[in-house]
């Protein structure tokens, strides 16, 4: 299942958090050889993790991390504007209608479908909060994966060579995009909606407020 968890709520899910940051170390340091910082716990954590981002996390049956992505509003501090301005034609992307997604990560043993679930959850999140687009920094070689899932990013710019090629892209947040991912991955829209509803509190009744 998918959980939406702010950084300051991660302590409620110690196993999930521990396995997520370790899987991030395994992906970004070990497999992709990025220059990332891994702390004494074996966690890959950067400066943006300290700004209380929102994580979309796939939790497997044992309560462990299966995949995740990190979300931040582009009106605040974001990685794209601080590190990848050369990839956006010099345009600082700042809008309350665009949120940034970074550190897209899959556990080494992640089953097929986790990537699609994360993207579907991301589009659901955006639709619920009135957003229009998602901005992301990804590995260029992963673009075909997104295409297969049915979530086609528009690439603004790329840099680097070969396996190290990094891209900044934009993903549409729309009912159509959600439907396409749902159809290709076979995840019913009702399931996607339930993930969101389980993570964000529901409205309480009037009587309880007045009590």
């Amino acid at each position, binding site marked *: 299942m998918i959980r939406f968890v*702010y950084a*300051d709520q991660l302590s409620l899910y110690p196993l999930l958090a521990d396995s997520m940051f370790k899987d991030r170390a395994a992906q970004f340091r070990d497999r992709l050889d990025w220059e990332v910082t891994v702390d004494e716990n074996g966690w890959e954590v950067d400066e943006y993790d300290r*700004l*209380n981002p*929102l994580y979309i996390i796939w939790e497997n049956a044992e309560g462990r991390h299966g995949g995740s992505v990190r979300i*931040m*509003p582009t*009106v*605040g*501090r974001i990685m794209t*504007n601080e590190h990848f301005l050369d990839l956006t*034609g*010099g*345009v*600082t*992307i*700042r*809008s*309350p*209608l*665009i949120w940034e997604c970074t550190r897209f990560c899959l556990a080494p043993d992640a089953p097929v479908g986790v990537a699609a679930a994360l993207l579907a959850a991301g589009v659901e999140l955006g639709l619920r*909060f*009135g957003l*229009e*687009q998602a*901005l992301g920094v990804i590995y260029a070689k992963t673009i075909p994966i997104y295409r297969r899932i049915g979530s086609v990013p*528009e*690439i*603004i710019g790329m840099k680097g060579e070969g396996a190290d090629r990094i891209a900044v892209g*934009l993903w*549409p947040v729309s009912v159509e995009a959600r439907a396409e991912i749902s159809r290709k991955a076979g995840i019913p829209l009702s399931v996607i909606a339930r993930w969101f509803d389980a993570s*964000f*509190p*529901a*409205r*309480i*009744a*009037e009587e*309880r*407020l*007045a*009590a």
Partner: protein
Amino acid sequence: METARLEALLERLQTTKSIDELQVWAHELRDFFGVTHVFYHTASLKSEQVGAFTYSLEWARHYIDKDYRSIDPVVLGAQRRFHPMDWKTLDWSSPAARAMMREAMAHGLGNQGWSVPIWGPHGEFALFCLNHTTDDASWETFTRKNGKDILVVSHLMHEQAMRIINKEMDEPTAELSPRERETLTQLSLGQSRAEVADALQISENTLRAYIDSARHKLGALNVTHAVALALARGIIVPTGALPKY
């Protein structure tokens, strides 16, 4: 026309030169949305708090005297979050918080609310709220219909408050990159988005992001509005016309 009214209101916003004027503008925004109250507060910016609100000064003073900020679920709920939130999804489990809400209502506040936490690039935090008196179903319909406008307007009000606090009195212009100016110029010539994207050799999605960033920086509601503002301020010049001196 609802949209035209909101565009005019946002242009008016940029003429406010003081927090007092922003306070007057908050009343205009309240009338536009047809809600009970509108309020905007920064959190200890430059060690002083700035607010523009439509509720009574009496309630504002009472709130400060009682230090309700430390128990108010609206403040506590938004402080570490960045998604818009309905007040009834907040944690009202504390009796003190519910007592405060009853007092607020006795001072003329409504039973419903919608908050937008606002985070700036330097870590500054502000809170924008709409407050209204209505039943749950009507409120849900209202926030669903206006959610996007509220998100846009709240951030533009924050940008203006920042300009006032930092004493930047010029209308926002300087931040536009050459790419954004080019995009707006092409659109001002009546070209479709597809044509502009083609001319600039970028995708339509990329174009949308450029336009939306420019819209935010100009304080505009939508694309047409952004183009109109950019033309009016001489940021872009229609082809054939002489540049402004």
